[in-house]
């Protein structure tokens, strides 16, 4: 056996690490700004920068943290760990560079386009179709590079971290492609291929599993590499790795519908979501147990080593949020948590605790290694640790508190049988909690800046190791399995088989939930009175999506007495058949709008409200939208929008494209006349606000027409 000499490249891990930390700071800063905006609406600066209103900023924050911070964190770990675990350099430096620069380019495009209002209106998948295609291409480049590296390896068996990387890669590819089916209307504008209930199901199948396969499984892979490395302890249980890997990826996919409990989604699908979430608890904990038990015999080190401290809290937060998740999937708990700040607290325990702390721990371990030196200051790192922990607590506790408080207020009835509180009362009570939360976030961010300082100092005192030399024998063709190995080791030496098996395992859940929802008519009973949007309403809807209204307003009334009393008749599946994309939302910072047209049919009210929300609703935290009163409706796009809708089966008559703008102008004139009737309002009928009013007045009214007839 002759040893072969080769070199590990450290440049790309360094690049990715820098990008990860940079985007992390940017993403968290945006989060802090958005958090303050919720408490102090004046910070939206609507009159000067309509691009920075909460509805546009929040998607930039979520996308930046998920895909830029965590994404680059994943790639940092993968480009560092995979060569070492496989005893071979990455297959192609060129592909690696394309991957790196391509991913950063996507991030910049994403941030700019989201702030400009180009959005598909589907959470965590807001990016428009040209960027979606770019993501697919770069993901394929990454995949080719990773698999070619795996194929050319000098280590026969794949380590558990690599199973997680492979499963994550293939599942993210599947999720992204299926959820991004959209029909382009123009450059940077498209409609989701799916409508209403089906769109909701696909979206939350995606949304839930983006959490699973972007924020969880790749990070478990990182944990399996960096935690035993930093602790210098063997992984606790190989068998537990096998059990929890396969059960986790199989069960995770099914749980998407737990984001849609008590909605118009067919109940069998909801129940599947709940049932699989219950089963998901222990497989998720498998990762936590394997992580924490690996530290057995190293707990004395945990007290001193900041890297291990970060890892311990990260893994504990992972355990907490994966316990909380199944609890929130139980129907009665979900009734409280859905649309509330509880969900926000939950995801931030995951994002700040699990992803954040694991990344920080990884960086504190990795950067000194890359620069061949010791960490500049262990004390500063420990300070970062305490500040970060405090930040998480100060973030989460007010959010839990606010969630329960608003729930009890929301459902309180007076002895007379009336709702005790108006929505605005609830908004007013939770504002102090929003302030506390924003302070918690600021504290967490301060810790990040301390880390940046510490790491820059570390890099400066060392010298960068661009490559590291290593030696290993090539794999021999013949392989005789040792007698003590178990059946699973067969899969571990067949990467393509592992890839295919992972794909099969993750495809099952989605197929079983989606196919019947798409094909069986009873799942979405049709309602005859539900008609397509008029051209003006359609334009208004696109403005609604552009401004990100769905970030604060749901359009889904659940069948509870207190919701029906507050918002109107509960929502039916058949009402959303022309909604490309669906706009059910996931958080109610403002009231539900599913029946806005019924409960507030006054054009004048909407006109005043969008101009200055506190005029009609004192105490409101909604930003104002003065730009809608200046911008003209984009009538040039009506033709292609109607055309795209008809292609997807929305029953506009043949040739309606040509007449659409006539109808649009007529309806706009009707609304403008209503506004002018009071003699106080002067408005030209071609302004965007007119389209917006038309859309809001239409919401939820179709079903009422049926009742009248």
């Amino acid at each position, binding site marked *: 056996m002759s040893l072969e000499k080769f070199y590990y490249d450290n440049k790309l891990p360094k690049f990715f690490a820098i990008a990860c930390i940079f985007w992390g700071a940017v993403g968290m800063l945006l989060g802090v700004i958005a958090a303050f905006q919720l408490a102090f609406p004046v910070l939206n600066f609507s009159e000067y920068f309509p691009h920075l209103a909460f509805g546009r900023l929040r998607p930039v924050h979520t996308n930046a943290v998920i895909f830029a911070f965590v994404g680059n964190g994943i790639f940092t770990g993968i480009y560092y760990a995979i060569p070492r675990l496989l005893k071979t350099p990455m297959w192609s430096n060129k592909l690696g560079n394309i991957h790196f620069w391509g991913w950063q380019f996507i991030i910049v495009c994403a941030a700019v386009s989201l702030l400009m209002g180009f959005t598909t209106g589907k959470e965590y998948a807001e990016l428009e179709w040209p960027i979606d295609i770019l993501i697919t291409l770069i993901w394929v480049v990454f995949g080719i590079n990773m698999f070619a590296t795996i194929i050319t390896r000098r280590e026969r068996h794949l*380590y558990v971290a690599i199973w997680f990387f492979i499963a994550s890669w293939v599942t993210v590819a599947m999720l992204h492609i299926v959820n991004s089916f959209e029909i382009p209307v123009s450059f940077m504008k498209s409609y989701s291929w799916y409508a209403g209930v089906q769109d909701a199901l696909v979206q939350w199948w995606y949304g839930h599993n983006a959490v699973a396969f972007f924020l969880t499984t790749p990070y478990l892979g990182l944990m399996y590499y960096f935690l035993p490395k930093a602790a210098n302890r063997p992984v606790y249980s190989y068998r537990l790795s096998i059990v929890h890997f396969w059960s986790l990826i199989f069960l995770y996919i099914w749980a998407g519908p737990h984001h849609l409990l008590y909605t118009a989604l067919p109940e069998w699908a909801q129940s599947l979501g709940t049932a699989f979430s219950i089963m998901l608890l*222990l497989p998720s904990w498998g990762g936590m147990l394997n992580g924490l038990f690996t530290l*057995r015999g190293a707990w004395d080190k945990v007290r001193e080593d900041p890297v291990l401290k970060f890892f311990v809290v990260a893994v504990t937060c992972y355990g907490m949020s994966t316990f909380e998740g199944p609890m929130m999937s139980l129907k009665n708990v979900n009734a409280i948590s859905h649309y509330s700040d509880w969900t926000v607290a939950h995801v931030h325990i995951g994002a700040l605790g699990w992803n954040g702390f694991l990344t920080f721990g990884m960086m504190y371990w990795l950067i000194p290694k890359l620069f061949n030196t010791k960490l500049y200051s262990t004390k500063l790192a420990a300070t970062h640790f305490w500040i970060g922990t405090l930040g998480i607590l100060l973030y989460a506790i007010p959010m839990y508190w606010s969630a329960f408080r608003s729930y009890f207020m929301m459902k309180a009835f*007076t002895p007379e049988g009336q709702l005790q509180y108006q929505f605005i009362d609830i908004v007013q009570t939770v504002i102090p909690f929003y302030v506390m939360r924003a302070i918690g976030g600021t504290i967490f961010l301060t810790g990040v800046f301390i880390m940046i300082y510490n790491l820059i100092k570390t890099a400066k005192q060392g010298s960068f190791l661009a490559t590291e030399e290593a030696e290993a024998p090539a794999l021999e063709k013949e392989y005789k399995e040792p007698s003590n190995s178990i059946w699973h080791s067969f899969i571990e030496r067949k990467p393509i088989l592992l890839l295919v098996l992972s794909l099969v395992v993750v495809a099952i859940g989605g197929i079983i939930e989606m196919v019947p929802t798409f094909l069986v008519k009873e799942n979405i009973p049709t309602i005859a009175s539900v008609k397509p949007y008029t051209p003006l309403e359609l334009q208004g809807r696109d403005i609604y999506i552009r401004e990100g209204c769905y970030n604060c307003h749901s359009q889904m009334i659940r069948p509870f007495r207190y919701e029906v009393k507050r918002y109107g008749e509960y929502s039916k599946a058949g009402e959303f058949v022309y909604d490309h994309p669906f706009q059910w939302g996931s958080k109610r910072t403002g009231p539900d709008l599913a029946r806005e047209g019924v409960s507030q049919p006054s054009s004048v009210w909407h006109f005043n409200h969008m101009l200055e929300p506190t005029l009609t609703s004192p105490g409101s935290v909604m930003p104002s939208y003065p730009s809608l009163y200046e911008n003209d409706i984009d009538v040039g796009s009506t033709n292609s929008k109607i055309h795209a809708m008809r292609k997807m089966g929305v029953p506009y008559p043949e040739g309606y494209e040509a007449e659409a703008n006539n109808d649009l102008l007529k309806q706009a004139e009707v609304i403008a006349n209503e506004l002018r009737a009071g003699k106080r309002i002067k408005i030209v009928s071609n302004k965007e606000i007119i389209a917006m009013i038309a859309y809001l007045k239409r919401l939820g009214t179709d079903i009422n027409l049926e009742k009248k007839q």
Partner: protein
Amino acid sequence: MTKNNIKKIISSLFAIVIPCILFGAENTAATSAKSSLDINAILTIVAIILLLPLYISSKTFLLVAVDYAKKRKERATNINKMAALALFLMISQQAFSQAIEVAAGPKSGNLFSTSTTTWILVIVIVLLSVLIIFFSFLTNSFIKNQVDEAKPANAKSNNSATETSEESWLKKIWFKMNKFKSLKEEVDIDTGHSYDGIRELDNIAPPWFVFGFIGSIIIAAAYLINYHVLKSSPLQIEEYNIELAEAAKEDAARLAIQGNKVDENSVTFLSGNDIEIGKKVFATKNCASCHGATGGSAPGGVGPNLVDAYWIHGGSIKDIFKSIKYGWPEKGMISWKDQLSAKEMAQVSSYILSLKGTTPAGAKEPQGDLYKDESISNNSDSTINDSIAPKN
């Protein structure tokens, strides 16, 4: 240092969480009923039973802590820690007694029947359990400290050898629960794998993990069977109908006590205290935001003034009541019948009528017709949506 910090954080956490739960309890006092007496009764009993171990564990802790403090008095190092703990203890005891009042307080049997009570009880029980565990831990750590200190300095070097024999019962249970092997036996369970120096052990998964997983699969199956095969629990719409039926029953019961409900035909002008209440409702329930705090509407105000003799929709007490109850939605006046009770609407109507003739500063110009008692205004209800729905 770190241990101290953790304890402080935990204690402040409790101090925050407990009143939070209590606040929730306050708010639910008015919520409606659902009969699930047996569950709540059982939970209450469990909570009361749990009181005993809590009492014992906290008392034990106090005894041990006092003892410990006495012994270390001369050194006076842990004053901080003790103060934090004592504060926490005070807060938790106090909050705890309140929580028990909530749990065990109901005499009417009314509280026994709300589903929210179930939740509160569950939370109380969880909290009790956590407190018990917490006190046990603390007591344990104090005792351990004492043992450590009692040992002569030279014996400390032998500590590692006698480590296993001095392990706490909790640690022993923890070892058994997870079927841990001692670190010395690691060599026997090494898989021989080494990936970039990372070795893997062949420990078995903790038994509770395996049984828990199997258990969760059974629970999940039972969940699906319960809802979709046996159909023994109500699905969401059914659940909603049950909720409505219960609310209707309550309504009926209330009506039976209060006599006939006030409506737009029977409403009369109320005076005295009712006008004061009406004024309050007017100010707090958003009337003022469109009609002005004085009822005169602001110069740029959205709603018409309510102080002159001109009315758009009629100015009798019955007309005003009707406007409030059903609203004039297409003009921006929403219906208030779901947010105000009939009595409150009558009170606000009376208050509004009492404003007649006042001349607040900056009042809006008159709108509508001069109201004389017999005039009735008509208003056509235009359904805009019909005219603009797309043709297909």
